[in-house]
């Protein structure tokens, strides 16, 4: 048990976000979300659909890192040229992503920080598909370094829809806005607090609520009974290791700490 890493615990927790999601495209962007989606498909939710990271649908999740190009076995085709029709705008997708900022309403930012639209202080990627993803299908988040620069009171540029009443355009259809889970290196949270407030559901071993609150730029709610985040099973650890033969996940969380903190 002592050799279980925190990143494996996070992957296991992230995979729970995809449980019983049905025949939808599970997209995990970045090593931890991608391993989590693969783990979910290979264990509790085989009906999930996913791509090879490019344009083909695969029934066997593709391992991370270098390998023979032909190792991928396409079972279907889902190119970007059909992505909005088939996956995003049909609501048949659940994406897990890592934006630069997330605020108390679950609004996310990937565009720019500081300055203005015309002259940003720090330009990032651009909103990409976040506005469409968040108004059409479920979304979850993974952050490897829980801190107040990530969890901010108000994002600098609202790139994804959250639960901010001030941004609910009258007459707009926001019925598919569905923010599910936030997994960080400290805890698991959801949006089930009062008025969709972000709420701590489970704490990773040895982490306190006060520590999470101190690392968050807005007030957090807590579940009635905050539990300890579940340890990955032996089966899950085997699957994760098989999907990440080069141990790329070891570089995700600073110093790759164990799941249970040293006393």
């Amino acid at each position, binding site marked *: 048990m002592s050799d279980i890493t925190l990143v494996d615990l996070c992957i296991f927790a992230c995979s729970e976000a995809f449980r019983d999601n049905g025949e939808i495209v599970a997209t995990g962007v970045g090593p931890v979300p991608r391993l989590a989606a693969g783990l979910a498909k290979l264990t509790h939710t085989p009906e999930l659909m996913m791509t*090879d*990271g*490019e*344009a*083909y649908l695969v029934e066997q999740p*593709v391992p991370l890192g*270098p*390998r023979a*190009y032909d190792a*991928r076995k396409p079972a279907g085709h889902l*190119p*970007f*040229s059909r992505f*909005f029709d088939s996956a*995003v*705008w049909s609501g048949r997708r659940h994406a897990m992503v890592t934006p630069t900022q997330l605020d108390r309403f679950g*609004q996310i930012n990937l*565009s*720019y920080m500081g*300055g203005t*639209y*015309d*002259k*940003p*202080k*720090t*330009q*990032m*990627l*651009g*909103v*990409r*598909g*976040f*506005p*469409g993803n*968040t*108004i*059409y299908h479920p979304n979850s988040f993974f952050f490897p370094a829980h801190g107040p620069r990530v969890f901010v009171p108000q994002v600098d*540029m*609202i*790139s*994804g*829809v*959250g639960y*901010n009443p001030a*941004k*609910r*355009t*009258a*007459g*707009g*259809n*926001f019925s598919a*806005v569905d923010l599910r889970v936030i997994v960080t290196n400290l805890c698991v949270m959801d949006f089930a607090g009062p008025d969709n407030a972000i709420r701590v559901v489970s704490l990773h071993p040895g982490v306190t609520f006060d520590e999470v609150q101190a690392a968050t730029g807005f007030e957090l709610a807590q579940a009635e009974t905050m539990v300890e985040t579940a340890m990955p099973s032996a089966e899950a650890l085997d699957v994760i290791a098989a999907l990440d033969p080069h141990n790329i996940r070891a570089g995700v969380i600073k110093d790759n700490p164990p799941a249970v903190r040293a006393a």
Partner: protein
Amino acid sequence: MTARMLDKRMSAAEIVAQLSDGMTLGIGGWGPRRKPMALVREILRSDLKDLTVVAYGGADVGMLCAAGKVRKLVFAFVSLDAIPLEPWFRKARESGTLEVLELDEGMFQWGLKAAAFGLPFLPTRVGLGTDLAELGGLKTVQSPYDDAETLIAMPALKLDAALIHVNRSDWRGNVQVFGPDAYYDEWFAKAAAKAYVSCEELVDKMEDHYPEGAQDNLFERCFVSGVVEMPCGAHPSSMPPHYGWDMKAFKAYADSARVPGDWDAVKDRFVGASEAEYLANIGGKEAVTGLPLPIF
């Protein structure tokens, strides 16, 4: 019409000569993939300026921004994938010299489709609840039916010209576009008053050479105004199945944006005086076709 008039072959310089200052120019491909980079380089060798560029951006956007060719940029992202933040685009943005319209990736293709169909806009939910509408000046419309839903009116992204790199074409503009994903090249072609294609392989009559590939005719030849053969014309972006992206070249390009980051001092390495010189400098056609396809 005689067969002769259907010969749409042009040189890259002749294609660029069709473009004029202030035009709205669509560029096909997606990030570091399937970019008509040889035609972009030809623009970089020209005096063309004040462009409005509409693109799922990669180094095409970065280079045109670096060279001061862009007055306005319509984008959803600019990225080189493995190098997530395009450094020359960042410099242009952070200097405040660029007018922008930032869009969601899906809204973007919706705007191309509106233009293709000659519509002023197409309705969408995308953009509601974010800062896009307010920052971009996008208006809403109300459904005239019982639902009375409020929607964003995504304006048509009408292009004066589009540049697209395809796998094959014949003289008449019968293109074949294949590989895992053609992204939105079809809609760039149809949204544009004139589309110019560069191709890896040019043949005289497609039906005599590759009739079995007719299903890869992504857009019909009525949408093609000019054709030029440019093998390796997507380098350093990827062009499957012919070659993968050149991450070493992307890295050198990204590194060159560091202080002092003067484009004029480095542009010869990334543009060259001619396409032949550029190709020779990167090791010739063999070096490009030897680039492995990326895996994820």
